[in-house]
């Protein structure tokens, strides 16, 4: 009898407590999601009027060179940032795990970009990369157009992205490394394994689940990069098409040009792209992620 009362009471409170979140998600996310799908098949006119026009937006999108360039830019940005970023984060995490003084000070410094708005970060890096007076060109004594040369603009942005994320990723990896039982290392030391061997045979396999999470997170963030490029490459920059990511193109089409239908098609495409890349990663992880702890 008591058990039954528990259940009904449970259900009543259950619905009541999830209600704000679920109603919020329905209004703010589920409905907009459906609406974006509808918009992507519609022609939009000013003042929010739209009419269903079939696959027109998609046809236009797939035949647009600018769109394909933006898709490539987003993928290229991932290629530039993810492997190098993960490597540096892992290196930093391993070094921070050593028995050293001032560990928390180092950790705090590496983490600092995380609490600074990307807008401010982009501003100072734009200054550092400035072709005429930037400190980098002053140091190397050359006039390199970091942000206006089509071949260099994305690599330059990638440097900033990696610099911004390295501390955050390192903190995540560090907590993964710290969860590894000390006994593995003690046993390995007794067997005469060097630090390098210990890294490849203990640390790397044991931290691989965390590494996988960080990688997925970083891939998703990189493919939908927007704010950094928006701030570093303004719309009058001659290298804009070489730097424009999918989300930047989306922003320009939807909120600058007012092509909401076309912009919706772009964002639907981006979601599909993220889905494919993530699925690919989950498939690939079987080969290198070790869950046997």
């Amino acid at each position: 009898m008591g058990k039954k009362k528990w259940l009904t009471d449970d259900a009543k409170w259950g619905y009541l407590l999830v209600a704000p979140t679920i109603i919020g998600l329905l209004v703010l996310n589920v409905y907009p999601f459906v609406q974006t799908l509808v918009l992507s098949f519609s022609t939009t006119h000013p003042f929010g009027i739209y009419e269903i026009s079939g696959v027109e937006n998609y046809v236009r999108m797939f035949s647009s060179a600018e769109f394909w360039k933006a898709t490539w830019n987003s993928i290229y940005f991932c290629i530039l940032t993810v492997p190098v970023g993960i490597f540096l984060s892992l290196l930093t995490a391993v070094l921070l795990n050593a028995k050293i003084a001032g560990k928390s000070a180092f950790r705090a410094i590496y983490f600092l970009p995380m609490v600074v708005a990307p807008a401010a970060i982009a501003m100072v890096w734009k200054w550092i990369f400035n072709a005429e007076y930037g400190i980098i060109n002053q140091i190397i004594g050359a006039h390199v157009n970091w942000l206006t040369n089509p071949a260099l603009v994305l690599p330059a942005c990638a440097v900033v992205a990696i610099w911004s994320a390295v501390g955050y990723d390192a903190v995540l990896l560090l907590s993964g490394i710290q969860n590894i039982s000390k006994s593995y290392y003690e046993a390995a030391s007794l067997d005469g394994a060097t630090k390098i061997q210990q890294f490849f045979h203990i640390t790397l396999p044991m931290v691989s689940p965390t590494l996988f999470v960080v990688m997925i997170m970083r891939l998703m963030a990189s493919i939908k990069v927007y704010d950094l490029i928006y701030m570093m490459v303004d719309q009058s920059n001659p290298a804009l098409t070489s730097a424009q990511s999918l989300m930047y193109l989306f922003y320009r089409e939807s909120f600058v040009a007012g092509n909401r239908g076309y912009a919706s098609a772009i964002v639907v495409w981006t979601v599909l792209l993220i889905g494919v890349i993530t699925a690919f990663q989950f498939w690939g992880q079987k080969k290198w992620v070790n869950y046997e702890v």
Partner: protein
Amino acid sequence: MDSLQKNYRRNKILVYVFLTAGAVLMIFPFVWMLLTSFKSAGESVQIPPTILPENWLVSNYEEALTSLPFIRLYFNTTLLILFRVLCAVAFSSAAGFAFAKLQFKGKNLLFTIVLVQMMLPSQIFIIPQYQMLAKLGMTNTIFALVFPGIVSAFGTFFLRQAYLGIPDEVGEAAYLDGCTKWQTFTRVMMPLTRSSMAALTVFTAVFAYADLMWPLIANTDINMMTLSAGLSTLRGQFTTNYPVLMAGSVLAMVPMVILYLIFQKQFVEGIAMTGGK
């Protein structure tokens, strides 16, 4: 033994060298921002560049402060963060508790909505969200800034994890003591999730402060902008006057950096907690 010890010392020195070099690279842009912000426009473009300003000018700060309504930007950003954090923690705690500790029909389906929202990029919602806001006539308000973040799917997921970590016996004991479900939630269990709520607070605050696309879209009136959005308009006004841009950037980042320096441990651990899950 002696050579081992030598090796050990050499390794340790190498670790310090690497970490220090990295730390210098991490700090340098901020130092450069600060130094540039005190230089005159002429000095900033001097070749070869000066490291320290010849005269420490505050005029760039005066100029940044008169070009942007910083007081308003601080105020708007503070309110945005405050409301987003309150909403995220309150609603996500309630939903997280219910999803973890209560049995009700359709629970899995409802939780699926939460999971799917978490995996989708926010941009897929942004056009209709803006259209709703415009229809309500609520653009250029504080409400507009908070709007897409009133509920947090991530927060729900994250706090559900925290409640799952509390043994069911705690709930049963509270029930036997005569606590109602509401009391079990608010008096018994919620206090046990304090560190997770703190982590969610930090996470929500940092991301609300960093967000750029939504504030730029929702509020186009300079007086209703956030620090990030305001800063991006400063870029258009002073395209080449970097000392003023740097002064503006310093003003925009200072409050968060001060908070970070005070609550450094909570920031780093909170973010590590939300990311690792």
